[in-house]
């Protein structure tokens, strides 16, 4: 029970942070997504199946509270958690010791998240806009990955 309640409570704190505080640090409309960071870490630690189920429900809460299109967050969070789950290892410290895994898993999964989340909010994606969606997803995933790397600022024994 504790394993479910605490992560959900953490997400309820992260969503207001994402919607209220994070816009202050946006650079040219690009913001990191702290809820996504948490979901991806969850998937890295717990594996693909737990990760995608958790991401699916968090996506629903995110869609409802952020007033986005219901379903767009569910789809994007689930897909990105699935990709992150590929890099799951029983011993999480192994992942932490290998920064390349964090960078690669976060870049690929967050790129998918931002791409699908933006595309689902659009009624019609015109050919000339497709490239701009990819560019936006790329920069957002870089920003999110850099943010995720801040875990290295914590003392290693506390993680």
């Amino acid at each position, binding site marked *: 029970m504790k394993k479910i309640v605490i992560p959900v409570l953490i997400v309820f704190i992260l969503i207001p942070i994402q919607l*209220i505080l994070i816009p202050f640090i946006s650079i040219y409309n690009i913001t990191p997504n702290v809820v996504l960071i948490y979901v991806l870490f969850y998937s890295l630690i717990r594996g693909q199946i737990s990760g995608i189920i958790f991401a699916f429900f968090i996506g629903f809460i995110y869609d*409802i509270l952020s007033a986005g299109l*219901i379903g*767009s967050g*569910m789809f994007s969070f689930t897909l990105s958690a699935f990709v992150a789950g590929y890099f799951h290892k029983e011993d999480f410290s192994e992942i932490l010791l290998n920064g390349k895994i964090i960078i690669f898993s976060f870049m690929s999964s967050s790129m998918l998240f931002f791409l699908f989340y933006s595309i689902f909010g659009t009624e019609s994606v015109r050919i000339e806009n497709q490239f701009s*969606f990819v560019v936006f997803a790329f920069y957002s995933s870089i920003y999110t990955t850099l943010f995720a790397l801040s875990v290295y600022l914590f003392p290693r024994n506390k993680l």
Partner: protein
Amino acid sequence: MELFVRKIFKKSKEYILLFILLIISLIILTQSTRPEIKKIRRYAFASFAVWADLFNSTFSSENTELNKLQIENAKLMLQVNKLREYAFENYELKSLLKFKAKSDYNLIPTTIIAKNISKSQGVYIINIGSKDSVRKSMPILNESGLVGIVIETSENYSLVKSIESSTLKISANIPRSNVYGIISWSGDMLVMHNVPTTADINKGDRVVTSVLSTIFPPSIPIGLVVERRSNISGLLSDIFVQPFANVNSAKNVFVLASVKSSQIDSLELNLLSQ
């Protein structure tokens, strides 16, 4: 056979689960405009907005003098724009008497308390609602120009769809050449699609809300023409517009409490709910 199915399921249960969850998400996505879903969303955003407001008030300080100046600026901006329009009308030798004078704008100051920044889903929450006479479809602006439109209200909070949301379509006009069109967010810029290539439009032309819109009052500044791109046939072109208002950095905005006929109001609300 059963063993084979079980083996397949065991081997690829992650993929099967992913497939099921993605299908459910897509089904929900297609149903997101249903009234029941909208109702859930309204209750959820109203309760979340209380949190957001609390959070927001902890991190920002009120400056009444600045707020007063911003209201004044927004009113002046609307008046200047009206005057520009009069000048064009005068130039075209239209009778000014036919134009109903309207200089008193009822602006309700408010603050954006939460933002959902995405490439295409620009939705904000503001801290006034139906109790402050805010209604669905009222325009939101700041001292630079149009910011968005109210799409949902609760007692104390309202949901705003910003102009940087690709699902918002605005009836717009380029007053210099009297060109009308529908403007929408493309992901990077506002675009007026399918304008005849022969239309006299130059870089730097102002774009404002048109008189044809029953949702937005006319002459609210939207942005400046920055580019014109012809399509393959060469008959029609897309006009790219840079918005005046920097929607993402907007914090203090105003609701333009426009009073309209109840008949028009009910018609446009029907259009919005579609």
